[in-house]
């Protein structure tokens, strides 16, 4: 009746072995890589907001300070999303007919809050506090990127725990004089490391990596 298998089956056998091995090693590795991609981190995907609010215009052109709208950023865990009233401080005078701002006016008239889409989100069990970071000289740009160059705000940083840890272990790279925190294009003059060190000393920065610093 002749042999059970043919010569070609030898190659077949080897190939299939290889495929199994490659799969076993590749799938987990692939997942680990994926987890680090901007896509998986939800970075750089533009988010549709109820009103096309343009940060470029407000910060760069009008030179409005971040803290005018996000006015609890230096005294509260939350940076604060401006109340409708705040928008209308200006927009009751300027662009007060503009159709783009209709939702804002409606919100005020109907006394219904605006429903903005969240861009930056850390898990519920992470307690990030804006005020301490801002008061110790961590600039907005360190986490939020060049908001002044974004038409629609998008996530600029991965916000993975290891990313947070990086700075909590070596904060120098992200420090600046406290009065410069909102400055989008501040650059350290001189050796950044040296500047960072002396800022850390000046602002009395001591970052902690104890779990309860963020998880409570």
């Amino acid at each position: 009746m002749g042999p059970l298998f043919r010569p070609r089956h030898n190659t077949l056998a080897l190939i299939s072995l290889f495929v199994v091995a490659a799969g076993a090693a590749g799938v987990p590795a692939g997942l680990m890589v994926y987890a680090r991609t901007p896509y998986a981190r939800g970075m750089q995907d533009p988010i549709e907001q109820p009103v096309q609010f343009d940060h470029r215009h407000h910060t760069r052109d009008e030179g409005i300070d971040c803290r005018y709208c996000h006015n609890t950023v230096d005294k509260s865990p939350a940076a604060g999303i401006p109340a409708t009233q705040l928008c209308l401080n200006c927009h009751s005078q300027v662009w007060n007919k503009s159709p783009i701002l209709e939702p804002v006016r409606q919100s005020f008239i109907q006394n219904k809050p605006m429903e903005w889409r969240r861009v930056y989100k850390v898990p519920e069990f992470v307690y990030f506090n804006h005020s301490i970071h801002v008061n110790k000289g961590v600039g907005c740009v360190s986490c939020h990127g060049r908001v002044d160059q974004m038409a629609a705000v998008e996530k600029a940083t991965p916000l993975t725990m290891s990313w947070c840890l990086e700075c909590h272990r070596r904060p120098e790279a992200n420090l600046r004089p406290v009065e410069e925190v909102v400055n989008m294009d501040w650059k350290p003059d001189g050796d950044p490391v040296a500047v960072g060190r002396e800022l850390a000393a000046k602002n009395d920065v001591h970052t902690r990596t104890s779990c309860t610093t963020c998880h409570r």
Partner: protein
Amino acid sequence: MSCDDNKDARTKDRDRRRSLPVVDKSVAPAKGAAPADGGNGLWRSQRPWRSIDERDRQGAMPGAANEFPAGTMDVDDNVSRRGFMQLLSVSTAVATVGAACQKPNEKIVPFVRRPEEVTPGNPLHFATAYALEGYGSGLLVESHEGRPTKIEGNPAHPQTIGATTAIEQALILGLYDDDRAKQLRQGVTPIAWRSLLGQINANNAKLAENRGAGLRFLTAPTTSPLLLDLRRRILERFPQAKFVSYSSVADDGAVDGARMAFGKPMVPRHRLGSADVILSLDSDFLAEGPEQTRLSREFAARREPSPRMSRLYVVEPAVTVTGAMADHRLRMQGTEVGSFVAGLCSVLASRGLEKLAPLASLSHGERKWDMKWLVALAGDLERHRGSSLVIAGCRQPPAVHALAAALNAALGNVGVTVEYGAPLTPDPLSGPAPLAALAQDIAAGAVDTLVITAANPVYTAPADFKFAKLLERVPNSIYFGLNEDETAAACKVMVPAAHALETWGDVRATDGTVSIIQPLIAPLWGGIQEAELYAAFIGEGDVGANKLLRRYWQGQFKGGEFDAHWERWLADGIVPDTGVAAEGGVAVDGAALAQTVAPLLTRTKSGMEIAFVVDPKLYDGRFANNAWLQELPHPITKLTWDNAAMLSETTAKALGIETGDIVEVTYRDRHVDAPAMIVPGHVDDTVTLPLGYGRTGVGVGGVAKDVGFNAGALRTSDNPWYDRGATVAKTGRRFKFAITQDHWTMSPDGRVIPPPAVEGPIEEVLKRDSKFHEEIEVRRGPLPTIHEPVDYSKQAYKWAMSIDLNKCTGCSACVVACVSENNINVVGKENVWRGREMQWIRVDRYFSGNDDSLSMITQPLMCVHCETAPCEYVCPVNATVHSDEGLNEMVYNRCIGTRYCSNNCPYKVRRFNYLNYIADYTAVRELGMNPDVTVRTRGIMEKCTYCVQRIERKRISTRIEGRTIADGELETACQQSCPTRAIVFGSLNDASSKVSQQHADPRRYDLLHEIGTRPRTAYLARVRNPNPELHVPDAHGAGQEHGKGEHE
């Protein structure tokens, strides 16, 4: 020392408190929008909370706020804090890639107009007060974006002095209780408040015809100036109308007793600060009554081991918190106390207190107690004239109170340790007597309109009134209550009341000081306020409580700019100089008193004694729907989710009853079936029945349903507390108790293990080289180890705690405070029975001695934050590790739930979420969660964190200010609520800190020190101050084991 505490506490608290009128200003624009919120919004004056209401009506209830409360809250329920871990747990797709967080898919909802004092993300504290039995306790309520989340005591308030009771802590849960009455209804048809007002007006006209003869108000006892003023105005309009105040736990005995002794009704006010010898006649003054927090503090202050340490004698039938603190406890039937105190009078008279001479002759029947005890006590009192105190309990008849008053007068204590003042309310009596009068009127058909604002009288009224039946005879009955309870079912109109934290009002403390009650949140279900209901009868029902209150106080206010003062009052929580001075110069006419009392003391009845007690958790039953209190272990029996017919071991043996047997208790041919429990130190031949259970009301929700038995069904108006002639019979059925502590003694099954709690008599403690100190010294200090201990001295803080067992009364306020602060889940009876209770603080309770010489120690035990924590090295995923400051951290989000840490914890202080207890939280309930603490879902280990969320908040705020946290500036939730200041928290790196001193105290010892865990929580041993004339119970007598809790 306690006074100092208060002072800096007060200064400390000023700045973090705000007054609501500031909020009112921000309301201005809202008034315009008032129609938008369903009519009854006029008085609903706080603007910021409107947004919640709108969410409410849109049906989109916010989830518990997260750490980005960008204005108010999160709309997407899925990703609310409770949702999150569930979400992670299901979306393993996300999880498997180890993604820390998923695509942002939720909304941020800012304010439309942000009230200027609200900083999203930072809590505010508002001062308010809570009225119970007519007396107010001052509270500070923590509020996150308008959601009250935590109750604290107001240090400025004379009655709470910064502490709270377990019941006050639990108010938060009551506020968000989804079973509350939500609909104003007439019969079964819902009606609007305005239309009810219309009807009331119409009815008023009719009533006015015969000057309101048919109008009756059945109210809870009250001292509220506003309510009393409204009452005055109502009575002006309807002179024939009557106000009856009723409470099933009223302290009428004291008032009547004072009347007997002094000739006029008076209310005693006690001062333990200067009391060297205290005799409690069946009075649980440390855990009962409006003064309890203050008295506990004053008592504890005098328990510092020193020659000045006070001595406490307690005479009582069943062990109470106070009895457990006693240096000498005499168990005695409630009906015996009268003759006991008479006996005391005669002994003291014979010792030359001539004032008592007339009372010496009082016959005290055949005595059942140890005369030696009585003589020793008498001697002690006599030696401490002017610095002793006799307190009679609210369950004792007037005669006993009268004799107690006489004793105090004779001993010269009046004005020093006790003072008598006129009642703060026009109707001093609020017990069965006034209710009986009302019952007669109703029976006689004289009542046309009955307005009930008292707490659920149908359930609490004595059984012989058959109150529900009576109500059928009232044409117009209006019930004003929180729940659709038994009374609501019996009344024609049900008016849903606003919760205490939703109302405007005022109330007096026992010393008369007025506190303004201000709402923390707009009524979640549009509840009505008591003042408004009253006002309806003078045609001002729609004015709104806020206006009524301001108007009244503006009227009272003399001179100066009102608004400024008003704000100050709200901010401080008290109205200055409103205290009522006590009356000096009270005199006792001994002879007259002897005549009045003599007949009352002769015991006529015989047979087994039946005794009713107020439940320390559910009170008179009004808190039955509060799961926190239901699950709170009873301070003595450690029983949860039930009440029990309590018996002494001897009596139980005689009747062939064991713990867990269901017995039939019969009294005056009424009977209830009740599970029996043998309790150490209980007096023989007496059955004690706690009130407040066995609620059957229609609207009483899942929590209270079918929990326990209703002892009230046996209660009669003539003997509301004690009587003889009860019978107890075995039914043969068994019952499963959910008890959190099975074992009564420190060495169950005769185990020889070092006692967890150490105690000693005072002279031993004062001698440095005594047996006591030998005992203690081996329980502290370093042990040899192969691991170089980590050095924490370089850190900014070295957190540590100390608990003074000498001060801990076991009142359990800390337990509820911790539950409230840390979002701890309720597990329900079945799981408590299985041993899965979640409270982080376990108040361990140990008896020693025998029934006659019983002593008890309570030991609050939560994670002691061992420096060499055995739980840490066994965790495979680094979910529990040490912080740089030596906290034993529990990282919920890393925990995979192997439970290995709990197994290896020698203290067994870790708690595990065996089931998904948060699954059935309503959206409203979530509003009450503390947004600073992660809510734990199923499969996660948790434990005491030393309130790390408070540490971190304080750390951040102080670091921003560029300073370090000062000692005492940071308080844990348990510490904050502790009435006796037994718990101290702070940094050991600050040598001057309170906790450092406590750790250096000669009484300091470490629990399970011999294992070498180096706990950060130290205990200070319990010290007793026994009378040398009486035998001193062995320091920690490995007392014989008492009956175990049924646990099969």
